């Protein structure tokens, strides 16, 4: 890896953090986007795409809901891809590196959220004085500092870490590489389980099985399955609506719902 490439990837990390942390929600920070960019910088767009697909799968359930994110997929996918490609290694090494890097960087992120929280007492003072400019500065100040540090971390790890990492990875025996490969194929299960946890509804969960059957036996593409699901969803909602109109008093069996949930959590 040349110095220039390391600097460019540092800038990708800088931008990736701005996208992630601003909460703009444009998904430009997802592994499927970042890994191909890193691959392109390192002259191997193809590997970048392959790794991006695999990383997106394991980080699929990593979403920021209510401010808690289980892992920093941004740094994980940038460094995982960059290390793996520069060492001529495959997807399994990218994943094996991305997961711990993501976990480690998430702690850094939590530290930042904590430090910012200590600054929040200033906000009341500024609001009291009507100082719009100072609130703006407080709002944007820390993200820039964080992004610069973040970009530098990515740059420094690549500039000084590749040799070290290469020595480490070279010593890994084949059986472990195969094991990592098997694990990386299973890891998406965690992402899907997290999504299921978010979407779960005891009365609708059987649809999960429908999707599974449609994909397993009919090999339908995802858009077709989404279309079928949309149709079923609309039918259910229309049925609900006409049902509600007839009996407006018992529209939501709240108590029963709760009992079911408790039963499941048991």
């Amino acid at each position, binding site marked *: 890896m040349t110095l220039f490439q390391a600097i460019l990837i540092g800038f990708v990390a800088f931008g990736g953090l701005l996208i992630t942390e601003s909460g703009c929600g444009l998904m430009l920070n997802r592994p499927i986007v970042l890994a191909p960019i890193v691959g392109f910088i390192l002259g191997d767009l193809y590997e970048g795409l392959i790794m991006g697909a695999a990383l997106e799968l394991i980080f699929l359930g990593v*979403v920021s809901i209510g401010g808690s994110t289980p892992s920093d997929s941004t740094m994980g996918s940038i460094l995982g891809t960059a290390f793996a490609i520069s060492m001529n290694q495959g997807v399994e090494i990218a994943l094996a590196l991305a997961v711990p890097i993501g976990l480690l960087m998430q702690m850094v992120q939590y530290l930042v959220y904590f430090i910012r929280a200590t600054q929040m007492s200033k906000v009341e003072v500024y609001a009291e004085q009507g100082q719009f400019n100072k609130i703006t500065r407080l709002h944007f100040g820390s993200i820039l500092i964080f992004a610069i540090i973040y970009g530098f971390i990515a740059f420094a790890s690549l500039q000084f870490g590749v040799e070290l990492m290469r020595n480490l990875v070279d010593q890994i025996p084949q059986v472990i590489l195969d094991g990592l490969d098997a694990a990386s194929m299973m890891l998406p299960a965690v992402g899907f389980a997290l999504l299921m946890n978010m979407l779960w509804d005891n009365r609708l969960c059987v649809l999960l099985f429908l999707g599974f059957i449609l994909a397993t036996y009919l090999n339908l593409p995802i858009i077709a399955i989404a279309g079928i699901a949309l149709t079923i969803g609309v039918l259910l909602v229309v049925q609900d609506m006409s049902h509600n109109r007839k009996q407006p008093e018992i529209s939501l069996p709240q108590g029963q719902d709760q009992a079911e949930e408790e039963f499941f959590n048991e």
Partner: protein
Amino acid sequence: MSKFEITPQEKKLTRQLFYRSFALECSFNFEKMQALGFAWAMFPAIHEFCGTQEEQVEALKRHTAFFNITPHISTFLLGMAASMEKEAAEKKTMDPAAINAIKVSLMGPLSGIGDSFFWGTFRVIAAGVGISLAQQGNVLGPILFLILFNVPHLVLRYYCTIWGYVLGSKFIQTSYENGLIHHMTKLATVIGLTTVGAMIATMVSLNVGLTVQIGEMELVVQEIFDQIMPNLLPLSLTMAVFYAIRKGIKVNTLIIAIFVIGLLGTFIGLL
């Protein structure tokens, strides 16, 4: 639709709210979460509707209170808060404290829809298409992913600003009462769960490499599983992980457990 008539000046305001919503989490923190982002996005509205210094201070205090919502639909509450600021400025009888109360009461239900639609449905479908292309080394993968997600996202995000501004809090309240929010959440859940089920089949993979020698016959264990149902093992694995998450086991523990299973399984020749 006569309900949607707004003056050019108001249109400019909603556009500013929309643009500013993209910086909602720049100062995200554990104490006030998106509070500063919401306040910063509200600056144009505060300047527009609060004439005196005292009014501006009051409005600033209101909007720097704790706030947290799915960013993609934050514009709805921005629009709504702006229209309520306008109402409070015009009608002195309205208690401005109601603005914050309604904001806070709507955060939860709106995030419920927002999370299941944007994180659980649009993103999963877009990722499903993008991943299957990227797996073949096709550069259209990430591009299609971004387009499939962001076209509905940006259209909805923009119109939510206007809807929030024009329809206001009353709309949300009635749609909560007549079940519209409930229906939308249900629709997102149906689509989300079905597509997740499909992706478990296509994107999780777990194969047993074990062969058992029974007399002359060599039995490939994976073939037996495939006879029962293809992808049976990935489905069981995902359900097991889901059950563990429901039981309160930490996600990181589960990831490590999968690494251990993969390594041990390969080592003893099971996988």
